[in-house]
């Protein structure tokens, strides 16, 4: 209608009058993997990205208020001949304040699927729990576990709807399904990559350095455990925003096992004593 166009309202108000009946019968439902979860309501007429930009990007903020979206973490995962190794640190920070040293950055979705978290803790925990819910529903509906590629696709589709609205999430979905070991990187822009080795977070460059110099596809299991642990440890040693303990998981054909949870202080003494 002309008046609606002039006011600019018709951009975000859907003219449903004529189609209302059709909508109720043909509504998008979970059957077609509805990506638009109705859980987060975004106010009409406000563009969240524009609203947030002065608060986050500019030096002075708005009226002296600046939202500090800092996220410190190191997480890594790599595929090798015996499955997938997953290792994460456990420090949660808010700016330069360490909130906790014992944060669980790996979510156990089911015995054959793990998700790591880096970025904003709240975003990661929330969205990965929604993913876990979707995976459970998939298993009930289809009587078989969801594949790793489908699970990562669901997560990517969920967050892409909130692109530009300030989500901060870098996650790796690791699992073992009918096609073998699977490893996908998914981030808050909806980017989804399949790969053999990923590391995310503020300490990822340090972890990549150690991983790349020691990685071979045909590592033995103890060698892989050692490499993953070392990579996280060295990242926590140099990156101020990573630390706490190194939590390590091994994804095998029979499911994942939690390999170890070691404090980085103890690891420091172990590694540096080796040199002597």
């Amino acid at each position, binding site marked *: 209608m002309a008046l609606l166009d002039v006011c600019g309202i018709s951009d975000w108000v859907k003219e449903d009058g004529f189609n209302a*009946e059709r909508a109720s019968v043909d509504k998008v439902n979970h059957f077609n*993997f509805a990506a638009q979860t109705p859980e987060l309501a975004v106010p009409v007429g406000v563009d969240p990205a524009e609203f947030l930009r002065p608060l986050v990007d500019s030096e002075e903020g708005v009226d002296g208020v600046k939202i500090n979206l800092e996220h410190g973490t190191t997480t890594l995962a790599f595929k090798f001949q015996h499955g997938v190794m997953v290792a994460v640190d456990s420090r949660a920070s808010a700016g330069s304040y360490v909130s906790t040293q014992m944060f669980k950055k790996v979510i156990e979705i089911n015995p054959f699927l793990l998700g790591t978290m880096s970025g904003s803790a709240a975003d990661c925990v929330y969205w990965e729990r929604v993913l876990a819910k979707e995976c459970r529903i998939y298993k009930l509906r289809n009587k078989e576990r969801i594949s790793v590629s489908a699970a990562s696709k*669901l997560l990517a589709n969920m967050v892409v709807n909130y692109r530009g609205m300030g989500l901060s999430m870098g996650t790796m979905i690791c699992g073992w399904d009918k096609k073998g070991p699977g490893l996908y990187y998914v981030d808050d822009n909806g980017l989804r990559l399949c790969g053999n080795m990923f590391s995310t977070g503020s300490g990822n460059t340090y972890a990549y350095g150690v991983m790349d110099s020691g990685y071979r596809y045909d590592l033995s299991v103890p060698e892989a455990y050692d490499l993953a642990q070392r990579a996280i440890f060295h990242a926590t040693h140099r990156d101020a925003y990573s630390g706490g303990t190194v939590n390590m998981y091994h994804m095998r054909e029979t499911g994942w096992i939690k390999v170890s949870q070691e404090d980085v202080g103890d690891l420091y003494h172990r590694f540096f004593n080796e040199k002597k």
Partner: protein
Amino acid sequence: MAMSYDRAITVFSPDGHLFQVDYAQEAVKKGSTAVGVRGKNVVVLGVEKKIVAKLQEDRTVRKICSLDDNVFMAFAGLTADARIIVNRARVECQSHRLTVEDPATVEYITRYISSIKQRYTQSNGRRPFGISSLIVGFDFDGTPHLYQTDPSGTYHAWKANAIGRSAKTVREFLEKNYKEDMESDTDTIKLAIRALLEVVQSGGKNIELAIMKRDESMKMLAQEEIEEYVTAIETEKQKKT
């Protein structure tokens, strides 16, 4: 007082019937016969071709539609309703491939079609779809399947089944002659043709047949191939009598 309970679809009758759904099933019984057989390595769908007018191009009447590379279906009932269902199912197959990165299983797409049909039995101002369908195909892991859906939105897996006009006769024939896990593709195809010949007038030229072998795409048999099978069947019958 049946009259007052069959106007609106959303009203149950005192004895628990949804009359509109029952009437939809009557519409299905008026449609031309379709038969489906599941063998070990091949799945077959056959339909009775309607006699077309002299000036009509008979290639435009297609009762067997492929939904994806690994699934295809035949229906009995209102052709226009079937077009809608087939369209939605095709979109859903691609949507599944996009989201899950794997082809949809036959059961998944059957469940989707059934849920559409059920939604239209529970909604104001709409009538149920007047079709039953036979959905066949192979899953990603190679298992063959045959499912039948009906206007009420229920679905069942079958080894062999028939829908449409004279479905009962055809099903009885199938029950007598079906053998478990037929290894030979030819036997499976012959069974479908023999079942259709029971009810189709004037033999092979009124039969349309589609087969799918594991890891291959759907193949519509040409008229000559069908005639070959029919001749082979006739010779076997002669030998027996």
